[in-house]
């Protein structure tokens, strides 16, 4: 097995390291305190208290009330719950507004609603411009009387581009339309205060903010009509059946506490490292292009296309130096087409296949940035030598 200390990990939008502080609070619930939070005895009751404590911590990070927090198994479950809930709450409304650049959790759900529900739906998928930004006027025009829900991600997982959720939620509320945001990439990286927003549903995932995998949250604004997705016991006040994933919930609570503390560093030191890497690579490698808006972007994410070479080949060369990152190329996606996000932005094929996403965290160091900046130019040059499309003087 590859040891973590030997790895230069720049793939934090895929998943993050579990913070040691998080693991520490989880272990007792995997070892000694195995009681069921629903039990009547004190041995289970003490576990319920830990879940309640974690719920408060998550709520604090989001500026929400603890009762508005529903624990789920992952971001995808949270997304599905929000969208299906809205459709079932308003069976006459068969229109959804979303974007072309959503995570597959929302994108594939919206594209398959007719099959999944047995009813015909209209789905408006908002276009983005070359910077990955939405046109708010088009958004307003898309809102209709039969719109059941708007589902728009807060920040894009591939480019880090941030959408104006505050304004978009307000516009939906003004029309009496429910608003859901997939904030899996945003939570912990940028400040969020749901008390001041017109957001009705928000999804987050534990493993994107140094918590464990297998736990997520759906925020449900108090008073929002709600139909559960997983039907079973009375857990989560009847909003999500299934025995609680106690250790992970406790871990997520601690992760949210840490995220609040680390957010300043994320937006200063991590952002500076990201900028150094980005500017360094764009300067030292010809025919490299930044994908996504220059400033309206998460502080940790940089998506760069290296023209005329293919992403999987780049990643495997990086892997030789234990550098971990991601690509929007076809070969890495498991499909045969490059990233839908980059295609929606109109990134040409010459560049889309050669895109690399670097996503940092507070655990990255300046030495790692220097190391990657040193290794990338020869990797790209080597592959270009081999490419039939590369002209040395181009």
């Amino acid at each position: 097995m590859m040891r973590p200390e030997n790895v230069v990990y720049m793939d934090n939008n895929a998943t993050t390291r579990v913070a040691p502080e998080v693991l520490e609070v989880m272990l007792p619930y995997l070892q000694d305190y195995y009681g069921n939070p629903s039990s009547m005895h004190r041995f289970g009751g003490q576990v319920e208290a830990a879940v309640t404590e974690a719920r408060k911590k998550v709520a604090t990070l989001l500026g929400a009330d603890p009762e508005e927090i529903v624990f789920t198994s992952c971001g995808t479950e949270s997304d599905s719950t929000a969208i299906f809930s809205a459709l079932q709450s308003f069976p006459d409304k068969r229109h959804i507004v979303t974007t072309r650049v959503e995570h597959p959790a929302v994108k594939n759900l919206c594209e398959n609603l007719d099959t999944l529900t047995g009813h015909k739906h209209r789905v408006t998928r908002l276009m983005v411009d070359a910077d990955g930004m939405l046109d708010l006027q088009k958004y307003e025009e898309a809102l209709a009387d039969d719109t059941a829900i708007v589902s728009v991600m807060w920040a894009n997982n591939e480019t880090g581009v941030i959408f104006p959720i505050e304004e978009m939620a307000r516009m939906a509320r003004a029309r009496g339309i429910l608003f859901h945001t997939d904030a899996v990439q945003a939570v912990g990286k940028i400040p969020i205060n749901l008390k001041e927003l017109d957001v009705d549903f928000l999804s987050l995932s534990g493993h994107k903010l140094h918590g464990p995998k297998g736990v997520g949250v759906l925020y449900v604004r108090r008073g929002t009509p709600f139909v559960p997705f997983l039907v079973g016991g009375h857990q989560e006040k009847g909003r999500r059946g299934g025995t609680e994933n106690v250790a992970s919930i406790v871990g997520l609570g601690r992760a949210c506490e840490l995220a609040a503390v680390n957010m300043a560093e994320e937006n200063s030191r991590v952002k500076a490292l990201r900028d150094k890497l980005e500017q360094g690579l764009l300067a030292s490698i010809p025919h490299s292009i930044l994908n996504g808006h220059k400033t309206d972007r998460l502080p940790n994410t940089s998506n760069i296309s290296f023209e005329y070479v293919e992403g999987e080949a780049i990643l495997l060369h990086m892997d030789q130096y234990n550098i971990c990152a991601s690509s929007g190329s076809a070969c890495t996606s498991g499909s045969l087409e490059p990233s839908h996000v980059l295609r929606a932005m109109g990134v040409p094929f010459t560049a889309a296949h050669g895109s690399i996403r670097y996503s940092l965290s507070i655990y990255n160091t300046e030495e790692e940035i220097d190391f990657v900046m040193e290794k990338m130019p020869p990797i790209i040059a080597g592959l270009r030598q081999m490419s039939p499309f590369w002209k040395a003087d181009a």
Partner: protein
Amino acid sequence: MWEYTNKVQQHFLHPKNVGEIENPDGTGDVGSLACGDALKLTFKLDEKGVITDAKFKTFGCASAIASSSVLTEMIIGMNLDEAAKVTNEDIANRLGGLPKEKMHCSVMGREALEAAIANYRGLKIPMAEGEVVCECFGVTDLEVIRAIKESSLRSVEEITNFTKAGGGCGKCIDRLREILVATVHQGADIKKVVEKPKRMTTLQKIKKIEEALEREIRPGLRKDGGDIELVDVDGDFVTVSLRGACTSCAKSQTTLKEYVEKKLRELVLDSLIVEESK
């Protein structure tokens, strides 16, 4: 993560015979940037018709590079009749196998070799003669049928793994199933399947639509102070954006359906559906 054999990794990290031969006897160019992989193969023959040198340039993933590299190694020393018998299975076997989703990389190697031999012999590339089945990746029915026969494919998923056909918009999947059934049952039905109207690749479609917009549609709109721009083509769905006076015109929807869509159906393809970008 893909499970690549040591042999694949070796040929990927240290490829053999990278480059382009000057004044080659045969050149084979297959794939494209849009498709995500491409290979240019060149070879040189001696007076006895034996391949003395072969070089490649490849744009693509690790298995595409490894397939190209091992292919050049295999064919050097062969005469053209021997080289013509090299199949994609031979290439994959020489690499110790490829992940099934990556078999199309070995198919690309074989097709480049075929194209280079055809180029030397002054013949047309046999597989390109067929009718395009998969518009996204420009795969012909002949390529699909051969892959089914040679690699004993038994599902549409396998066809996609080997030829990429069906791996884009997915519109051709029913058609691939028809071809699969017909081929497996040694069908006399294949002929009938082949005689459907010509299909276009997405690239061809985009080009034709742009031409039609420029020549036939724009002049009419401009007369009224409007304009139109092509935003996206996704299968038969054509997304356009109306500009200028068209944006505020109450009749713009009628223009879109009655004029733009009608024209495009007439000039490009009768199944196109025109939508306005929202």
